[in-house]
């Protein structure tokens, strides 16, 4: 597997599309931190996040024949990640947010700081699922509003207002970090 470390991703995709487990393992190696990070931000629970990240890769392997024709693997992977998360929320909690839910979330207050990672995960968990997804796609994945709208099949206006509302809630909940310009309160690091 070590000799694949320097191989271009497009070649790895072609090999994986032909059923090469080694090439797929290398793809997993390269992409898993981003996928797990994404899931962790969305669900806070470490075990569930890893389970969902594995589901992403299992889904990729099941549909590996499609990998050969993928132009942007990053975009394709993001689609699968979102799809796995949306399926998960469908079984657990509704994806349709309401203003009431938002109000309840905003009412929550930050517990004593425990470190940026935990506090950010906690703050994200206060957001309703769809808002959380939009905020993570926007601020963590760096996607534009129009890209998020296309990805989630939502009207652009809905995405804009959802991201704005979610960002405002996050700013309220994580005010201490923002005032100190991303330095954790009390100088504590994760």
């Amino acid at each position: 597997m070590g000799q694949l470390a320097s191989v271009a991703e497009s070649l790895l995709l072609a090999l994986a599309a032909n059923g090469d487990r080694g090439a797929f393992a290398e793809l997993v190696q390269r992409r898993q931190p981003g996928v797990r990070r994404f899931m962790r931000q969305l669900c806070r629970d470490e075990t569930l996040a890893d389970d969902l990240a594995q589901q992403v890769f299992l889904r990729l392997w099941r549909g590996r024949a499609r990998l050969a024709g993928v132009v942007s693997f990053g975009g394709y992977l993001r689609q699968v990640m979102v799809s796995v998360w949306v399926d998960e929320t469908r079984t657990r909690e509704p994806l349709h947010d309401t203003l009431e839910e938002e109000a309840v979330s905003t009412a929550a207050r930050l517990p004593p700081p425990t470190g940026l990672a935990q506090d950010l995960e906690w703050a994200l968990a206060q957001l309703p699922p769809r808002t959380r997804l939009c905020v993570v796609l926007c601020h963590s994945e760096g996607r534009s509003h129009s890209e998020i709208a296309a990805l989630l099949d939502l009207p652009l206006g809905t995405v804009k207002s959802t991201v704005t509302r979610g960002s405002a809630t996050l700013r309220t909940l994580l005010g201490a970090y923002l005032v100190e310009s991303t330095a954790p309160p009390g100088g504590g690091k994760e």
Partner: protein
Amino acid sequence: MDDELKALFAAYDPMLEQRDFAAALEVRLDAMERHARTARWAGGIAATGVLSALALLSSTQLLTVFTQMNGFANELDDALLSSAGQWTLYGVTAIALFFGWRRIRVLLSL
């Protein structure tokens, strides 16, 4: 304002353990492959069963038509009829399996 939030997200580091994740994924991939292989074999066996049943059915039908042909039964004695019928049965079954095997192989390679 959003830049501050983006900076917060950029600083987010959940400290992920890579080895455990890869090992667990390998196990799940193996299980998925095994399951897919079992499903392919089950599909192949079911297809063989259906094709064999169809072959038997069609040869039996053919035999019935064969024996009911006008005047044929009267011209051949029972032994010859039985032998011809059996050989017809074997022949049609072999032909059906010969052509059916290609379908079964396609199913197995899915």
